[in-house]
């Protein structure tokens, strides 16, 4: 479960700098429910995203570490569940943001005040409360593509 994205795909992506201007946008999708993850990943891939999947907190943290170490190609968007088995998702997201400011979308089943505040603190651009419309998420993701025409300004 440490890595559920193809190793060779990461290598093929080349160096982070080379990837900055690639035409294939990449996003990190962290969701512990296999069915939902598969559904979202399929739809996002259909939309033209290269999707990195993390099935739990451990996997998310591993990817965050790898991103920080520059071991994998950089990503352009993070979509993450809040509560998953393993270490807290937000810690991993903070780690990723420390390296490069990428937009963050949060999905949660427990929309508590605390979760909302934490998401805002991280600079998340949207909090999707389950059950949400999958199309809305895909649309939001599309708006956040690096090649998108009208990219919303990240909130600071």
């Amino acid at each position, binding site marked *: 479960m440490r890595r559920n994205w193809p190793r060779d795909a990461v290598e093929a992506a080349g160096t982070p700098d080379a990837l900055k201007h690639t035409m294939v946008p990449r996003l990190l999708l962290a969701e512990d429910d296999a*069915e939902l993850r598969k559904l979202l990943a399929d739809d996002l891939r259909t939309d033209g995203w290269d999707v990195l999947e993390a099935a739990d907190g451990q996997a998310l943290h591993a990817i965050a570490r790898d991103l920080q170490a520059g071991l994998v190609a950089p990503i352009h968007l993070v979509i993450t569940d809040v509560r998953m088995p393993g270490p807290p998702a937000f810690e991993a997201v903070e780690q990723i943001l420390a390296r490069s400011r990428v937009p963050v979308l949060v999905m949660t089943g427990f929309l508590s005040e605390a979760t909302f505040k934490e998401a805002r603190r991280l600079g998340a651009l949207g909090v999707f409360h389950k059950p949400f419309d999958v199309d809305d998420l895909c649309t939001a993701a599309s708006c956040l593509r690096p090649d998108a025409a009208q990219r919303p300004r990240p909130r600071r």
Partner: protein
Amino acid sequence: MARPLGSVTRQLTAVVMLGIFAVMAVVTFLHVAQERELLIEEIEQDHAFIGAALRESVSALWRVEGRARAESLLEQTARPEGVELRFVVRPPGAPGTRSQITRRRIVTLVELPRIPSTAPMALQISQPLDELDVLTRTVIEQNVVVALAVFLVCAVLVMGVGRALVGDPLRTLALQVQRVGRGDLSERVEATRKDEIGRLAREMNTMCDRLSEANERVDTETRARIAALEQLRHADRLGTVGELAAGLAHELGTPLNVVQGRARRILRDSSSPEGAKESARIIVDQTSRMTALIRELLSFARRSEPRREPIDLRALALRTVEIVEPMATKRDVHISMQMPDTPLFASGDSTHLQQTLTNLLVNALQATPAGGSVEVAATRERAKPPADIGGGERDVLVLRVRDSGEGIEEAVLPRIFEPFFTTKGVGEGTGLGLSVCYGIVREHGGWIDVQSRRGRGSTFTVCLPRSPLSLEAGGLT
């Protein structure tokens, strides 16, 4: 009277008989004395008559022909049997005719006219009192017969009347007291009589009425108390449902998301029947998952009459963990289960027992910080019940919930089973949960043990008696 204290009637009869005996004895004595008096008087009259008849003739004969002729005349005189006639010297100071009784004889001296050349003489008539004895015997015999007859009649009367007036009513009352003693207050005794027994019967009936009323009051109160308790339990259950529902909402969010996404995909591309089929299958799976979750929560929330049925505690624990699992996920607490391979059958109400375990689990989850763990175990153990239940060590079925939370302060520990006692913040707990657990477990004949150390977590141990079935099940496996 073999058993003189055996019955009131017998005692009464004995006393009456004694009375009759005493009266008859006195009557007989008086009767005998009177008869004796009459007889003596009669004999004395006879003697006086004989004396008067012989007096002149014998004294004249003595004076003319001498003492020997007079004595022979006395011998020839006709007289009743046993009567003796002879001359005696008249004692001084005894003039006329007088009788006296000496040594079982009646002796009468009749003064004779003065005969020259002799001392003053008297004619002595004496007669034995044998007749008196015969008479006395006759009188006594008659009286004994009368006494026996009176005895018999009185005995029959007293026994009969005594039984009817005292014995039977008392037996009826005793039976009633016995019934009351057994707790049967339905019957009333007949209380028509105006005497003391009637009064006793009336008082007893009044007492039964009052007891019935009191019983009814207690019954009503007990029913009300049970209803109130059931309401409290329901309130507690609903409180827990609220807590669980928050977790359930998250648990439902994800499958709903999947269903929505899949349905949308089917709508969008009708070109791939295989893909649509796959999506439909996933929708069905997700729907069943949600149905199961909701059903568990509903069955937990539903109010039910207490029942007694064999319950496998392992299955109960599994079901309960399933419904609290979403809450555990929400709080990021891991629940581990330790269950034996063989069934653990307790006897009781599964809804109530599930409520108990749910409360303990919810408490444990609330006490445990994120990342911690809660352990649920079901086992068979030997344990000694607390003092208020009493008895020695016994085999019990155990449900144990151990958390790695903050523990319970020692000062608070004795109070945790009190209703409305809570250490949780306002709106977090009703303070009913543990008191409800305590009540339910006690109703099942069991008890709850708590062990807690500040900062080291708490362990709640529910001990339940084994169902008769658990022996069979234990023997089978």
